[in-house]
């Protein structure tokens, strides 16, 4: 029998009403189903650790209430399991919130699966680490280290479902594993049935970014038009016992599921398509086929798998000093000339008002910014429209807050001491948490699940040594 995977969110900060039509359609179909919330990335994991660093009770998905409240009751009443990595840096805290939400809905007896074992911070110095091949920097010193989270696979989530969990809360698990877990639980696939594991993993990969497979992050007016993007439907992936899968979305929602939308998501964040690494399986997409089989229905086939990698990827977060930004606008006649003069003045000021190790970058937004390098090559070699609407942006980084404050204050001072007609200064600075990726041995990771009421919250040591 078909199993339905519904996506409720594709990142932290996603639309919080997205899951409502997905759940309505899962209920209407009456087939076995699960609802998945993927809300954790490299950026959001760092942000969660920063939040927990400031407040030990925080550090899980800040939108958890808004995401779950509209659908929790319906899912519990219709046997739709909810799995989410919304635990982020504090899964126990998220379990507590889910419990409170369920109590409010009259379901104080809710069974919450609490997945643990991704947090290896306390053992990091004693285990064998390999640098991930895509990065080259030095391992941060112990004093800068904030957290280390392993990308767990689907196994502990399946364990939670086997214990009867109705909601499964995790921290760092590989995004597609959230989707693979209910398939493993439902179909009872073997853990070395590599082709099925690969198909289930790609069902997850296609669904994990929410509407990115169903018309979100796709529209390019005139070339790639998407209907009703304001109400874009989040995906439902239909998976069969043999691993065949179809991507679709709830009827009556905006967006579209086409070969093009599915292809873009199929390779999203993939490197070598013949060896896409996940904790559960290595996926080979070399012979993948994507075929439209009906309106908003696309079949994906030809996915093969081979044994899972020996090591698991780990994200390490460490204190990266301070970052600051400040901006000022110039518009109207000779705006480009005035913005460029302001940039030159700032560059000169920073040579004697800031230490040489200050990292800095100047963009002229409206002319050259996001495509440019930190050294401003594009900006230097091109000329903007004389009359325009430009915003000069200064971005700086330094281990010490005072130099970030001083540098951004130099932009503020352009109000009086810079070129004519500058306005709209905004200025902000904050602690930066950097991330680096490593590979750890599976034998150094102990992942497990417990039902929340019987689990101990033993995370009180959090934040030690991390300033």
């Amino acid at each position, binding site marked *: 029998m078909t199993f339905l995977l519904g996506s409720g969110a594709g990142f932290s900060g996603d639309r919080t009403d997205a899951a409502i039509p997905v759940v309505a359609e899962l209920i209407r179909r009456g087939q076995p189903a699960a609802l998945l919330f993927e809300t954790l990335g*490299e950026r959001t994991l760092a942000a969660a650790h920063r939040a927990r660093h400031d407040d030990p009770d925080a550090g899980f998905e800040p939108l958890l209430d808004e995401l779950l409240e509209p659908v929790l009751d319906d899912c519990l009443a219709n046997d739709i399991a909810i799995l989410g990595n919304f635990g982020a840096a504090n899964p126990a805290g998220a379990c507590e919130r889910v419990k409170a939400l369920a109590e409010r809905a009259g379901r104080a007896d809710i069974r919450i699966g609490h997945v643990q074992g991704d947090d290896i911070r306390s053992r990091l110095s004693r285990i064998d680490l390999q640098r991930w091949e895509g*990065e080259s920097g030095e391992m941060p010193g112990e004093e800068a280290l904030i957290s280390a989270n392993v990308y767990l696979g689907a196994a502990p989530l399946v364990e939670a479902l086997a214990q009867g969990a109705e909601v499964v809360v995790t921290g760092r698990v590989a995004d597609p594993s959230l989707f693979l877990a209910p398939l493993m639980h439902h179909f009872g696939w073997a853990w070395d049935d590599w082709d099925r594991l690969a198909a289930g993993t790609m069902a997850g990969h296609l669904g994990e970014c929410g509407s990115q497979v169903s018309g979100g992050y796709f529209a*390019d007016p005139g070339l790639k038009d998407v209907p009703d993007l304001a109400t874009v439907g989040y995906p439902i992936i239909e998976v069969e016992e043999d691993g065949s899968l179809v991507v679709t979305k709830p009827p009556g929602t905006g967006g579209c599921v086409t070969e*093009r939308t599915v*292809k873009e998501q199929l*390779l999203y964040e993939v490197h070598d398509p*013949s060896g896409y690494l996940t904790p559960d399986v290595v996926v080979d997409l070399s012979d993948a086929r994507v075929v439209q089989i009906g309106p908003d229905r696309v079949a994906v086939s030809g996915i093969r798998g081979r044994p899972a990698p020996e090591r698991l990827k780990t994200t390490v977060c460490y204190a*990266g000093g301070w970052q600051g930004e400040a901006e000022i606008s110039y518009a109207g006649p000779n705006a480009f000339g005035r913005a460029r003069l302001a940039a030159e003045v700032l560059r000169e000021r920073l040579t004697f008002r800031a230490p040489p190790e200050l990292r800095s970058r100047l963009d002229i937004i409206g002319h050259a910014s996001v495509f440019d*390098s930190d050294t401003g090559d594009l900006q230097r070699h091109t000329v903007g429209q004389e009359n325009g609407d430009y915003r000069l942006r200064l971005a*700086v980084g330094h281990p010490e807050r005072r130099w970030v404050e001083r540098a951004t204050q130099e932009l503020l001072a352009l109000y009086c001491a810079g070129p004519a007609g500058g306005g709209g200064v905004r200025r902000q600075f904050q602690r930066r948490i950097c991330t680096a990726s490593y590979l750890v041995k599976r034998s150094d990771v102990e992942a497990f699940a417990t039902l929340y009421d019987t689990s101990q919250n033993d995370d009180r040591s959090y934040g030690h040594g991390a300033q």
Partner: protein
Amino acid sequence: MAPNDDVNVMSLHRLAHARAGDKGERLNLALFAYDPRHYDTLLAQVTEARVQALFAHRGVSRVRRYPLPGLAGMNLVLDDVLQGGVNGALNLDGHGKTLSFLLLGMEIAMPATHRE
């Protein structure tokens, strides 16, 4: 390449669509022909060397291209273009999400017989 009077130079943006993804300092750009008949043109012209040149100012250290004929597309993997990545960059777009459209600005020479 054919003489100039036999080709139209157009932006890759008219022929293909793309999406960027990031992991650390590594960027991938998945590129797909709108019309599978243009796949060979993309393969001939969107080469590792041309992509390397397009992203040279970003400090790219290596470009690898994985052709995917079954999808009429290719995956381009660029190392060290993110200048710090999502948690370390000074760039407004630390993910490099906008860079799919830097790629789509590449010029492609199409036979003059091509009609959009």
